[in-house]
């Protein structure tokens, strides 16, 4: 009997805690869907409205920001796939000269991400003439230690006999990767892709520094520019804009919850 009571109490506690956790977001949603006057007054019968989204959408070039972000995250992901696959294959399959040291050096980037070295990286981009370009925003992240690490671990688990079989059939290295490794490691690519997309969708400091114009600004920077007003804040509109910028990821997450969580798991634990 008392066991059931404790269980009930603990269930309620957990639910309360979850509610607290969801509160900021729910609050943002409330503000975004109600007229400004109700942003801070909770009235169940307050009229619902899309106006805030409309106003945010027209007040800043969010359509362009969306385009920039989409191009950016897809571009980074594609480039990461190519570059990390090649490196990971070499590192997992061949004990070439210096491979161990190389791998250790690669892992340094897990600690020292490009945003820690903003100033020097900014200068490098300046020399490459890539300031204010999407390429510039993405380039430092393309060779991702995380990606190489992840793929290498996975490639290692693929039996070497398959390799040899492919070679006997006359496939060269690139063909082996393409025909054999890519299909076998598909779940890892999905996982890595999701992690990469959500990381770069949300990345802020580096694009903030590198981009100067509407044509390159991703959503996060666009949102910050939009929200840092000198003349006073309209919370409803800002909440609407904030939700808007996160919406695609959130919707994707709601639809593919399981895949998302599995992916983060796969990416994190090996």
């Amino acid at each position: 009997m008392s066991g059931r009571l404790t269980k009930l109490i603990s269930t309620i506690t957990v639910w309360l805690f979850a509610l607290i956790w969801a509160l900021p977001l729910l609050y943002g949603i409330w503000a975004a869907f109600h007229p400004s006057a109700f942003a801070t007054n909770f009235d169940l019968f307050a009229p619902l409205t899309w106006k805030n989204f409309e106003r945010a959408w027209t007040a800043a070039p969010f359509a362009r920001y969306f385009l920039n972000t989409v191009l950016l995250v897809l571009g980074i992901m594609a480039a990461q796939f190519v570059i990390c696959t090649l490196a990971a294959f070499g590192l997992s399959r061949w004990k070439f000269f210096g491979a161990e040291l190389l791998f250790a050096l690669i892992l340094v980037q897990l600690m020292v991400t490009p945003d820690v070295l903003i100033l020097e990286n900014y200068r490098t981009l300046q020399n490459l003439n890539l300031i204010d370009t999407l390429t510039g925003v993405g380039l430092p992240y393309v060779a991702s230690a995380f990606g190489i690490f992840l793929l290498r671990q996975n490639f290692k688990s693929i039996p070497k006999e398959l390799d040899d079989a492919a070679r006997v059939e006359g496939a060269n290295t690139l063909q082996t990767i393409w025909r054999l490794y890519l299909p076998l490691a598909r779940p890892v690519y999905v996982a890595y892709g999701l992690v990469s997309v959500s990381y770069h969708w949300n990345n802020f400091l580096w694009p903030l520094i590198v981009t100067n114009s509407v044509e390159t600004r991703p959503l996060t920077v666009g949102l910050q520019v939009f929200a840092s007003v000198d003349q006073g804040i309209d919370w409803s509109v800002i909440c609407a804009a904030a939700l808007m910028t996160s919406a695609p990821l959130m919707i994707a997450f709601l639809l593919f919850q399981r895949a998302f969580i599995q992916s983060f798991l796969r990416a994190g634990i090996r």
Partner: protein
Amino acid sequence: MNRFARLTLAATLAASFLGGASATEITFYYPIAVGGPITKVVDGYAAEFSKAHPDITVKPVYTGSYQDSIVKAMTAAKAGNAPDVAVLLSTDMFTLIDNDLIEPYDAIAKSDGDQAWIKSFYPAFMENSQAEGHTWGIPFQRSTIVQYWNKDAFKAAGLDPEKPPTTWDEMVAFGKKLTKHDASGAVTQWGLEIPSSGFPYWLFQALTTQNGAILANQAGTKVAYNDPKVVEAAQFFADLSQKYEVMPKGIIDWGTTPKDFFEGKTAMMWTTTGNLTNVRNNAKFAFGVAAMPSKVRGGSPTGGGNIYIFKNSDKAKVAAALEFARFLSTPERAADWGIATGYVATRPDAWEIEAMKKYAADFPPAVVARDQLKDAVAELSTHENQRVTKALNDALQAILTGAKPAQAALDEAQAEANRILASYQH
């Protein structure tokens, strides 16, 4: 050399007017931050300009707050793709000069008409636009600080709704009457809010001005942060919340202050006249706008943005940028911009434009900031401006949050500023 430059300038201008050359594209950075209609207004100006000058295309880039904008402009300039023309804080002048980024207007605009144009703005605004004998900025969206008061709240507190405070003492006395508590003693309405986030030095400068102090010399090489009058003003700033309890404690956010005013959370607020249109659209009660109260004198610093023209080896771009700057500052546009935003139309003749006259007659608060210009002083601006004002900002926030006493905090700020400015003092 000069004549040569002028000749090339004339030649390129002539060439571009003849329409032979391809269109010159210039980039225009601007910060404003009321959202919605305002970016549209600027886009409209750019389009209108391009229509009148088919050989020039203006690409307006909205760069966020003033703080963001100077960072963006400097970053872009360091990368070799500076904007051609930008609206940045008038106080960024020394920073831009020291980095050798901007052209003085007197070097590129030399005709009699140009000279007359440079002289056509309110002298108060030009104080932050001239240094070392040159004119570096043209006033665009300039402001002063004004006080807004909620007439309904005044009435409810038994005050004359038509009489804003005119002195510090009145401000405190009114504030006490306007500060309301609920049964548990919690405050439901504050008497006054003077924002202190982001750039507290600016609002503070109104207090120092009223107390008869000047924060920096004209050359931007010396500051007087620990002048006794400045310390006294800082103490008063802190006392408003800590001693008189008419203002919320801690840092008051600049961005939410107008919202607090609309929500009735504060009965009076100090903010830029650039907020006039925002307040007019959103206040659900009768409100008034008045000049700053006085201590030994009235007055406010000017504020807001100037138009700067960036150096460029392509003289056609410099010429196009100058043309655009002139276009943005005609009396008609100054009037239109003032009406759209609430900023002070920057030249006396703008106030003679029919639309402006009508606006001023319909909405008398619009002239308050203009009339205050006679008492206005230059906004705090020095070499290494970001750092030197940060020293003051930090000190003010320390005082307002009760972390340090006024004298000690300002002594430290003075020492820091002296250290930073040492290399500029000969």
